[in-house]
């Protein structure tokens, strides 16, 4: 008798990871805060006028890169409804769309900032926080838990502080500078506040939510292997309350997918420190290896190799007035 081989599989022993539809690039046309809104529609039109040629350049460069020129490019726009609430979707969204149209820009997707904290009952910010793997200072040998200050994340070793353990009659310590782990001779030490909390609970910081936003646009977040946010097609009108607006609304039915291999954001230089913080955070997020593999396989299949490191898939244009 020949030997018989049995194969045996168990559903719950295997991991399944949903894959996201992906564009080549996701272009963020703007990010609207209360102060921009208060400055009136002219400010918005001015911003779109500045952005339009850069968006077109990006589009053209991808068309040149993709065989057959069939570049999948989607655009998005983020409105802050997390740190301050102003106006209503029914009043604000048409104004934004109108201003964009005047500059020949199409906004494919509209997102709410609070969706980066929690969307459809999934606490996205928590998911990402759990996936932080802190950048270890030299001498980190695994024997002790990673040094963390609750609610903060840095790119090196902080200065020793007065509260460190001291033994009676032991020798005292003087001041020492902080140090960047990946420094080249000199340090650029960055320490980012991820959240703070008060009696009402935890408030995520702007850079942390912006990091979640980047990960969403890169299609890198999963909850139980599922995509936590799927764009919802727009209805005939926009609701009167932000809470009723879906996390991500698809405004253009013909749009390329929301998530993309790469992202590009056109921003005012006042966001430079925020984006430095975002990169500090993103370079310490451990993305699900299965998701990374999916994306790499897909892009490889299209003949578009992607950089291994997530932060290298993100680009910016900082535009002064």
């Amino acid at each position, binding site marked *: 008798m020949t030997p018989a081989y049995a194969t045996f599989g168990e559903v719950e022993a295997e991991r399944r990871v949903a894959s996201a539809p992906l564009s080549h690039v996701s272009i963020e046309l703007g990010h609207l805060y209360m102060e921009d809104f208060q400055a009136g529609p002219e400010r918005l039109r001015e911003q779109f006028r500045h952005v339009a040629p850069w968006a077109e350049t990006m589009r053209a460069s991808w068309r040149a890169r993709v065989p057959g020129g069939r570049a999948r490019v989607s655009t998005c726009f983020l409105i802050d409804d997390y740190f301050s609430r102003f106006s209503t979707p029914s009043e604000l969204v048409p104004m934004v769309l109108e201003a964009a149209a005047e500059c020949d820009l199409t906004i494919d997707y509209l997102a709410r900032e609070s969706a980066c904290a929690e969307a459809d009952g999934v606490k996205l910010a928590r998911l990402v926080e*759990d996936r932080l793997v802190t950048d270890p200072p030299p001498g980190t040998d695994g024997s002790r838990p990673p040094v963390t200050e609750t609610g903060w994340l840095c790119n090196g070793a902080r200065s020793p502080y007065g509260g460190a353990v001291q033994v009676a009659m032991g020798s005292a310590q003087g001041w020492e500078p902080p140090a960047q782990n990946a420094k080249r001779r000199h340090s650029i030490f960055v320490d980012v506040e991820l959240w703070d909390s008060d009696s009402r609970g935890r408030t995520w910081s702007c850079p942390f939510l912006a990091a979640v936003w980047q990960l969403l646009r890169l299609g890198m977040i999963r909850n139980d292997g599922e995509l936590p946010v799927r764009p919802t097609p727009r209805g005939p009108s926009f609701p009167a309350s932000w809470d009723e607006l879906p996390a991500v609304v698809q405004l253009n039915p013909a749009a390329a997918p929301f998530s993309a291999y790469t992202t590009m954001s056109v921003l005012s230089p006042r966001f430079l420190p925020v984006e430095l913080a975002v990169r500090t955070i993103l370079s310490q997020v451990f993305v699900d290896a299965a998701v*990374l593999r999916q994306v790499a396989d897909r892009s490889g299949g299209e003949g578009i190799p992607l950089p291994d490191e997530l932060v290298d898939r993100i680009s910016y244009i900082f535009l002064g007035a």
Partner: protein
Amino acid sequence: MLVMGEVRTGLLQNSGEIPESLCQGVLGLLSGERVRISRRPIVYAVSPDQLTGVDCRLASAARARVRGVGTVLSRASVTGGRVLQGSSHIQVARAEADHRLSWSHYLARPGVVEVFGKMRVPDLADGFADSGAWNDCLDLGSVSERFMDAVQASPLLDRKAPFRSARTRLRWVAVAEEPGREGPGIRFTLGRDRVRTLRLVLPDGFTPDVVDFCEDLALHDWLLTTLLVIVERARVGTATRAEVTAKLAPAVDHLLHLWMPAARLDDGFAPLWEALERRPGFSRQWQSLVARVRDQIAINTLALLREAGGW
């Protein structure tokens, strides 16, 4: 190729074995990630993979200063709802740069530690296998234990373990078979302080199954070690029969049914287990102990029956 890891094994701090339904809560160390469970031939639940960053010396047998930077890949698992393991490992690779890169570079290579300068595989393999008492060198065991601690601290566990037992440590190192060096094989050494070392020479290079194999071996070594202590403490022949039975009972309740060597392993590892069964003869020693435990309990039952006059 050079892969090294450390598995720590201990008793889950709960009065009874935990049901499958509790495994998600106990091992769900990462939100948004499911605990994987397999049920045949024994319930085995494993946490999502976790990463820990390191930048430190790697132990070198020649006491050279070797610096490595990268991430350790870890997971925690519960077998039979009863035995907890923390397991960590790294693949050692040579760094292309001569300085430390941005952290995102290392995070893109989970479970890889890059060493600067020339990489001498035998030197690092020997160094790691012996590095128990070395300070300031990569300590995979502590990483594994922290994930065990996180599981043991779960509010879902009642912390009323049926007996006390020490965690065991299995440090393993795997290298590829190379012409002119030793052929494929396995060397298992029992050390002091519940430290065991395992050295593997693999013909086909590294696969995740190697980690499964090391965890499986660590599990069975722990079972054997723990049962030996229970039998020794029972003072068979010296203490009264009732005392002996009372001391042996937890073994019957909680350990004896867990022995299933190579249950979940890829067939490719069967020869390695078979080699260990020949020497030191794991299953032989286990079966002899189990027989002893059962005989003692049977004798005591007979004595009780006789006392009760039922015989």
